[in-house]
């Protein structure tokens, strides 16, 4: 228990230090409103990367899977949502409302993916039931989701572009489903392999996804990307009076406030879900598989199934991060999803501590905090005379150093523990 307290203290400490330091820089800026909004923007980026790292934390920390193509799942989520909303809504939503036969196939596919996710999450509740019951619970969850999706698609009228309407709602689901489905396929192909083979294969997968988004211009609009993606949170914040009042009270922009709140909410939900899972039998089985697959198998646990579930949950979280990302910047281009994003997420996880979900959040705050602090430092007059910009290569070099130094000096990361998963042994 004391360790738990220490971890929370580390988390709170990093928060205070990073955001305190950033607001100190903000004191020098004359524009008060920009300062608060800037901090909210940093919080949003931290939230997106924390979600990515949480996904990796399930995959690597709990299942021992090395996924070097994490950004591909983020990209699939983002593109799934954006492409659906902007290109297919005229075709798909009326079809759903008119209940064409093939529309049910679409619903069934989405529901199956998401249902499988729900099934994995429901496992901890269902663990005490017999196997057949668990399957029944999974199917029920899938059916329930299908009903919810159908209701969501048909109940809401087609609102103005950007409003939180059925199309956006469906787009989110499709983005998550596409990513989860890709996780399933990649897992089925790659999970029987050694850990470093999986790393190579997933890195290749992410490069192929990048080429697809770049070259399949009919669907993704190629290197131009998709501009003016609807931003439901943004639009909602600009049209809601109490939100505007609240933002005015704190002297920030309402849109920044709503975005950051959404991001922090997503991270909080994901964290609570993953912690519950980790404490449930499901998490313990995963850890057992990570430590020794044969022992887990001898106790009747299907290692492949558990790893698949971990991979799908990680992919779904990456998709959520991708959707938050496009809601934040309102556009999506292939270059948003380069391998460097995966590597940043890895640095975050490794720095915070593999095998500990708090570590992912601590790492995200620290890495982006360091980036922003260094960026602010180098924009001080002394540095600007020497034209030092802290973006791109210096950030990546720092991340590379973090990876190597943590592996060499403190394999368990900042809040990890040696008895748990660590990179050392």
């Amino acid at each position: 228990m004391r360790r738990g307290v220490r971890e929370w203290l580390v988390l709170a400490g990093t928060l205070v230090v990073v955001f305190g330091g950033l607001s100190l820089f903000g004191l020098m800026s004359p524009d008060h409103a920009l300062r608060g909004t800037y901090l909210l923007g940093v919080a949003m980026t931290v939230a997106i990367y924390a979600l990515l790292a949480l996904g990796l934390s399930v995959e690597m920390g709990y299942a021992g899977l090395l996924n070097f193509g994490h950004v591909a799942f983020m990209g699939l989520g983002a593109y799934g949502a954006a492409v659906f909303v902007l290109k297919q809504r005229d075709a798909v939503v009326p079809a759903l409302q008119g209940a064409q036969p093939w529309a049910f196939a679409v619903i069934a596919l989405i529901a199956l993916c998401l249902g499988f996710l729900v099934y994995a999450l429901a496992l901890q509740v269902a663990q005490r039931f017999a196997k057949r019951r668990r399957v029944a619970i999974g199917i029920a969850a899938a059916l329930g989701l299908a009903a919810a999706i159908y209701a969501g698609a048909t109940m809401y009228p087609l609102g103005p572009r950007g409003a939180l309407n059925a199309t956006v709602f469906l787009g989110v689901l499709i983005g998550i489903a596409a990513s989860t489905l890709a996780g399933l396929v990649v897992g089925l192909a790659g999970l029987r392999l050694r850990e470093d083979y999986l790393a190579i294969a997933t890195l290749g997968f992410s490069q192929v996804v990048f080429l697809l988004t770049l070259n399949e211009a009919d669907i993704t609009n190629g290197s131009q990307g998709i501009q003016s993606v609807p931003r439901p949170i943004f639009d909602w914040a600009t049209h809601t009076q109490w939100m505007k009042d609240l933002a005015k009270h704190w002297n920030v922009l309402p849109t920044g406030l709503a975005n950051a709140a959404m991001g922090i909410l997503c991270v909080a939900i994901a964290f609570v879900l993953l912690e519950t899972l980790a404490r449930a039998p499901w998490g313990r089985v995963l850890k057992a598989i990570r430590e020794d697959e044969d022992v887990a198998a001898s106790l009747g646990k299907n290692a492949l199934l558990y790893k698949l579930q971990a991979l799908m949950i990680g992919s779904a979280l990456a998709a959520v991060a991708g959707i938050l990302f496009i809601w934040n910047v309102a556009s999506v281009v292939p270059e948003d999803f380069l391998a460097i994003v995966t590597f940043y997420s890895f640095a975050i996880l490794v720095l915070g501590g593999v095998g500990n979900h708090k570590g992912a959040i601590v790492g995200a705050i620290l890495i982006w905090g360091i980036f922003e602090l260094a960026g602010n430092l180098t924009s001080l007059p002394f540095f600007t005379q020497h034209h030092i910009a802290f973006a791109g290569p210096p950030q990546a070099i720092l991340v590379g150093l973090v990876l190597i130094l943590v592996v060499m000096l403190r394999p368990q990361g900042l809040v990890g523990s040696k008895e748990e998963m660590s990179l050392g042994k």
Partner: protein
Amino acid sequence: MDLSAWLQPVANGLVFGAILALCAIGLTLIYGILNLSTFAHGDTLTFGAYMAFLFGTSLYLGARIVPLALGVAIVIGLAVLADRLWTRKLARLERWVLAGFALALALDAAYVQWRQPGAWLGTTDRVLVLATLLGIAATVLLSVLLELALWRPLRRRGATVLSLVIASLGLSLILRNAIQMAFGGDQVSLQRTVDASRSYLGVYVSNAQWLTLALAALVILGVHLFMSRTRTGKAMRALADNRDLARVCGIDVNRVVVHVWVLAAALVALAGVLLCLNQNNSLRTDMGFNVIIPIFAAVLLGGIGSPYGAMVGGLVVGLAMRIGPAKYDIAWAFLVLVAVLILRPQGILGRKA
């Protein structure tokens, strides 16, 4: 469609495959012997190419003293390292290689000094030869230093596959971005004479492509002789085969590992220069990272730890990438990779573990 339209991609694929084979030989040995799937191998290629560019540019600009001094320093550094690493007198092979290298450097430097750069068209190519040699030396030095500072401590600590892969990822990031900080993110070009190409039954093959094929064939022959005739080469194969058995037989693992890094770095730096020659002499900071998946595909296809397998694998992957539609070239390599992983994880020339 006539024949040449079919043969042209085959010719291009063979050339590209030869470059991939050069990269894959080193990686397969590192992978097999150290159990280290290093993602930094591609960026080592970039490093080699940029070092050649650096030396080439400064040589061509006439400031010959600086790169020559650097080159001499690098060769001396290598010799000192060699002396520290192999406390006994240098083995015969190393003596020959170092002596030959120094001789080649000296001859070429003398030649370049003698002929003013640009006095006649061949001179830029002579500068390039010298620059490539210096680039290879710099890359070898970097690799050996990294082995001493990074990989050997990690190995001694018994680091897992997971942490080794992550460390290599960090190294790859540092290398690539340090190069980008030093040389800028834009494309740069090697100084070279205009590349002529000739038609053979409608199939165009440029001089650079012939050069690549010839050099690759020579180097691969050399690697074959090295692997089959010399004690060090045999020790490498023994280590890749069964590390513990080799150690019991009295093979000094750390010493052989340094040789592996030297060989891998030299091959990959040469491949880097050849790769730019085949891309209109252009260098980009992500040129190495972009071919890491094809290189891994070649390694896995050939079977980890098998240099002959890597040669075959490189050619197959190169052909696959050039015969398929160009905008998805990485995807074809990825398909080969996935097919191998699923159908025959031990590779075509590998054996089941």
